[in-house]
């Protein structure tokens, strides 16, 4: 990246040269934003906003959205490792979320583990399942691999409905995920869960952004760009593809655990369908594949758009009450589909690319448009 820096911006120490947030103000800004966002749920916990407050409904609505955005970004970071960096298409991210949610909920219910342990457990366990469905990637790629992950998307929910019915909920399709407790404090509801989701998101972001720059991340990118060349350079394709599958599923498992404890339940009842996996892929493309910012921009943009579509649908449904059902359900897929198509045609590199262009234009002003 050094070549893209403006004149006069150079590093005085190797530590600064290697650091991700290269300049002090970046550090202050990032951690400041993290701190401010983290303080949001404490508005309610410290009693600054209560149900008596007129804006309470709007506050909880926003906390709900923020929580959804937080765990969606974690899932997208996983998908970004697999699809964005390694170039393997996955249509099964939602199914892996289901696995993670189950592992966390079961571990908490039956073993009484705290959430600090169940989330890593969900990551490790889901990663193992992801490895299983990544095995075909040793022989096939591209469309064929997409089919293998499509199989995961159908087989995993089926297994949860048909095997070990006492533990997995059987035909009901769901089990209860307990309220996580840390030091006696119950994290119930989206507002409280947002603390856990957001801290997890910060940790996964640090891991993800640093992973890209290590040997592992560079090997992934080399597999994506040219697998034959990567193998010639000594990158073991088998091992790195499986590592990508493991990491993608592990991130999905973390996201699934967070979602399960937020929704207080896990199972096929809670919509972990192919549509969700497609939504994730769409978010990644809209955000920008293979970039640090992609998962953030994609999740925020698409989820806000999605909520906007719901509000739009309900507003129009008020005007035409006889068509209410159709209007409420149809706007989300239409808005998402149109957005995805427009992005694929006009900005295939996503919002992240637009942002880099904007930054470059800003820096080069007045010499560039």
């Amino acid at each position, binding site marked *: 990246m050094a070549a893209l820096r403006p004149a006069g911006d150079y590093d005085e120490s190797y530590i600064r040269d290697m650091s991700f947030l290269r300049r002090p103000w970046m550090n202050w800004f990032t951690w400041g934003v993290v701190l401010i966002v983290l303080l949001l749920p404490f508005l309610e916990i410290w009693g600054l906003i209560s149900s008596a407050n007129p804006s309470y409904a709007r506050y909880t609505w926003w906390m709900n959205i923020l929580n959804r955005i937080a765990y969606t970004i974690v899932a997208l970071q996983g998908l970004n490792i697999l699809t964005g960096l390694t170039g393997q298409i996955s249509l099964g991210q939602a199914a892996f979320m289901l696995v993670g949610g189950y592992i966390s909920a079961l571990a908490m219910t039956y073993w009484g583990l705290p959430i600090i342990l169940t989330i890593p457990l969900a990551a490790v366990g889901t990663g193992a399942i992801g490895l299983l469905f990544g095995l075909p990637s040793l022989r096939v790629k591209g469309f*064929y691999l997409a089919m293998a992950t*499509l199989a995961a998307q159908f087989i995993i929910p089926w297994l949860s409905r048909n095997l070990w019915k006492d533990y997995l909920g059987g035909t009901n399709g769901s089990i209860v995920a307990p309220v996580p407790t840390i030091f006696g404090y119950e994290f119930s509801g989206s507002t409280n869960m947002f603390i856990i989701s957001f801290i997890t998101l910060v940790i996964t972001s640090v891991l993800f952004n640093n992973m890209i720059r290590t040997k592992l991340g560079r090997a992934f990118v080399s597999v994506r760009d040219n697998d034959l060349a990567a193998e010639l350079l000594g990158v073991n394709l088998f091992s790195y593809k499986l590592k990508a599958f493991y990491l993608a599923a592990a991130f999905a498992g973390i996201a699934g655990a967070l979602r399960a404890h937020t929704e207080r339940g896990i199972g096929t009842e809670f919509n972990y369908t192919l549509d969700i996996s497609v939504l994730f892929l769409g978010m990644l493309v809209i955000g920008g594949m293979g970039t640090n910012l992609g998962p953030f921009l994609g999740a925020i943009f698409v989820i806000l758009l999605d909520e906007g579509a719901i509000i739009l649908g309900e507003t129009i449904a008020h005007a035409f009450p006889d*068509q209410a059902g159709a209007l409420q*359900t*149809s706007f989300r897929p239409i808005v*998402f589909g149109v957005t*995805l*198509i427009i992005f694929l045609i006009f900005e*295939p590199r996503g919002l992240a690319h637009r942002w880099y262009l904007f930054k470059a234009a800003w820096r080069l002003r007045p010499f560039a448009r």
Partner: protein
Amino acid sequence: MNWQLVPQKFIDGTLQGGVLALIAIGIVLIYRSSEIFNFAQGHMLMVGAYLTWMFAEVTRNFTDNKTVILIVAISLAVISAVALGFLIERFALRPMTGQPLLSIILMTLGLSQLFEGIIALGFGVEPLQNFPSVYSSADSWIREIPARADGTPIVFLNQLVVPKARFLAFVIALASCLALILYFRYTDTGLSMRATSENHELARSVGIRVPRVFGLSWAIAGIIATLGGILLASISGVSTSLALVALAAFPAILLGGLESFAGAMLGGVIIGLSQALVQASAVPVVRNSFDIAPYILLLVVLVFIPEGLFGEKRIERI
């Protein structure tokens, strides 16, 4: 295994496989001409079924003759499917030429979301009644198998049921498969489609109008999807779940090999059989597995014969 169920399930599976094969053929067609994997085929099929229903409802205002309604509805639906195919190709996939595989797959997935939304907006989410069909779903040929004189049955079962609607679907699927094989082998446009699939630039240099070939293949795929939609809807009714049924066509294609119509046909039948035969099992869990049997088969095929039964062995072994 409940062996007495097996012959009946065999018939059911083969007939169901015929419809899957028809869907699979539509996907193979697009792949053969433009190397695009059309995940929206199931939704095109759903759109076709809904359009047929809509045109039938409109026609009912003018006439009571069932045959007229059916013919008018189907022909109008097929015409709009051709238009839809051209539109998709022109406005969604032509801008994607040269983009990576993932973008193109995502484009078809985006299209399928769009169709889902538009259908929900236009027709609501409830399944629709009064689909015009040649045979009702209960209409079937029943072959009673007589018992021996002493009362013991000759085979394990005493009757075989062949639903007429499914049989018709199977015959139409078989006919379109044959027609497409002949079309690709013996006609100029079919040959130009194959040439385009091999290499766009070379095809263009020998005078083939590549965009027109793409448009044509999408139009034909639209027709096939509409036919499949009509057949499926006449069996199981018009609802948005039609699109999900069609996803089972992908295992069929991989099993048959991506480039082969005969392979798609055979793959469809094998997938249909696998779905039906597991239902004859004595173990409840296996009996319930009919909706994932195609995908388990898919994983097996991917690991052991990735090029499929009739596909060209040009997969890169990596």
